[in-house]
């Protein structure tokens, strides 16, 4: 497994990945103004975290999923890799870990960017609401896991690069609308990250209820992750 992770790292287009990770924070740094006029850290949280979680995050996790499969879809990489003494489920797991590592890196950069925006506006460390930020960022990181698993499952099967991305963007766009619906919001995978950002009384100190956490996030993860893994492990490799 360590060898597989190392090869995933070797294969990754580092420049491109970093550019993708850095794009959203850069946009945000440029787009946001001054928070010094009494608005405080909460306003920074809502502006920086929300815009990221409702659109960028679900799209980016899909981009990463497509990116880690790209090298194999081009030029016969699957047969090259799978004719080696490797277990397919481990290949799948290594890809997922790589996707989530990129998501986590993006998250850390976003967190730092929010801090930077606040400090730039002259907001002090002492008033920084750790609870609000940590709960939101940690929660959305967990909430994006089932979605990332679904995106990886689709990307591994679908040779096209643009196909999964187009579908993903189409499904990510209504996430804010879906999130506002108490009926559909909790079931829509693309809305999970932004919902986990909204401060509310939840479970384990997170912003999501125990039902959402267990049924939707954990259940969804198990379904998408193991479903994709089993499909990949059993299928014939013709590419």
């Amino acid at each position: 497994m360590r060898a597989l992770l190392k090869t995933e790292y070797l294969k990754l287009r580092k420049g491109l990945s970093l550019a993708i990770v850095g794009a959203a924070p850069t946009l945000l740094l440029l787009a946001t103004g001054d928070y010094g006029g009494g608005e405080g850290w909460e306003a920074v949280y809502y502006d920086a975290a929300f815009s990221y979680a409702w659109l960028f995050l679900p799209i980016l996790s899909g981009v990463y999923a497509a990116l880690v499969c790209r090298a194999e879809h081009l030029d016969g990489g699957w047969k090259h890799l799978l004719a080696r003494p490797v277990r397919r489920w481990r290949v799948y797991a290594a890809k997922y870990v790589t996707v989530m590592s990129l998501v986590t890196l993006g998250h850390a950069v976003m967190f730092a960017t929010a801090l930077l925006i606040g400090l730039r506006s002259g907001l002090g460390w002492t008033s920084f609401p750790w609870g609000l930020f940590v709960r939101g960022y940690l929660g959305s990181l967990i909430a994006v896991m089932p979605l990332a698993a679904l995106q990886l499952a689709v990307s591994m099967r679908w040779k096209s690069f643009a196909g999964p991305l187009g579908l993903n963007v189409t499904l990510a766009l209504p996430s804010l609308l879906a999130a506002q619906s108490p009926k559909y919001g909790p079931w829509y995978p693309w809305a999970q990250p932004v919902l986990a950002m909204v401060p509310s009384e939840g479970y384990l100190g997170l912003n999501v209820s125990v039902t959402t956490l267990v049924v939707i996030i954990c259940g969804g993860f198990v379904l998408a992750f193991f479903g994709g893994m089993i499909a990949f492990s059993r299928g014939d490799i013709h590419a």
Partner: protein
Amino acid sequence: MREYIVETEALAKHYKRAAAVDGIDLAVGRGEIYGFLGLNGAGKTTTIRMLMGLVRPTAGEIRIFGEPMPRRRMAVMGRVGSLVESPSYYAHLSGYDNLRIVSTLLGVDEAEIRRVLGVVGLSPADAERKVGQYSLGMKQRLGIASALIGSPELLVLDEPTNGLDPAGIQEIRELVRRLPREFGITVLVSSHLLAEVDQIATSVGVIHRGRLLFQGPIDDLRAHSAPRVRVEVDRRDDAMAALRAAGIAADTDSEALTLSSVRRDDAAAAVRVLVSERIAIYRVAEERRTLEDIFLELTAEGAVA
């Protein structure tokens, strides 16, 4: 009993409509260059994919190094190098980094990379370049290099000369010929070209429409594939008798005589005999047999191995 490196028993792969591979029994002995010969679409690649564990057989059994596959895949595949269909590579990485990925997967030392680069004749400068910029011949050599990492005992090459220019074909051929000699590797190489297999293989399996028509030493196939001289005459029986009396080996079918030798002197001698017997000669022509002819002949004989 001979030691077989690759053995299959009634191996088959059925797709919805048809059988791509229809019950074949391969037997590849140690140290051989086994030419797996068949037209495009005959089932070569599907068979190789099943051997490599990429495609699940519908029926039948596979043993590699005597180990059942795919059950013992992990143990077996560390001893097998392969180049399945077109070469596979990561175009955005250098040749060296492509090989580094393989050496990391196999857990072998990076010194191995320099060794295999030397074997296939890629220079250190070539290895630093991105594979996306390689010519097809270089990609093919890189593919073989990557298959050689970790010193495999079995090398499986699927159409390794496809798309190469004559110089490239010659290079790959010589490389393949060297491997059993220098490294004791058993090679299974597929091709749709009779001449190609004829030049490198020591034994051969002929697959046609998913079935193995022939399997055995290359010399046995040569007997089927050797060119002949066809002579059309008016009185075939008299002609045969005359040739036989003159000690010239010949055969006859419903249309013409065939001389086993294609030497010019032998043809001239045969014509002389026939003319002296006042037999009318309509036509004398050398007949080169194509793979299709051999398939037809093998099929007609019902020589299903």
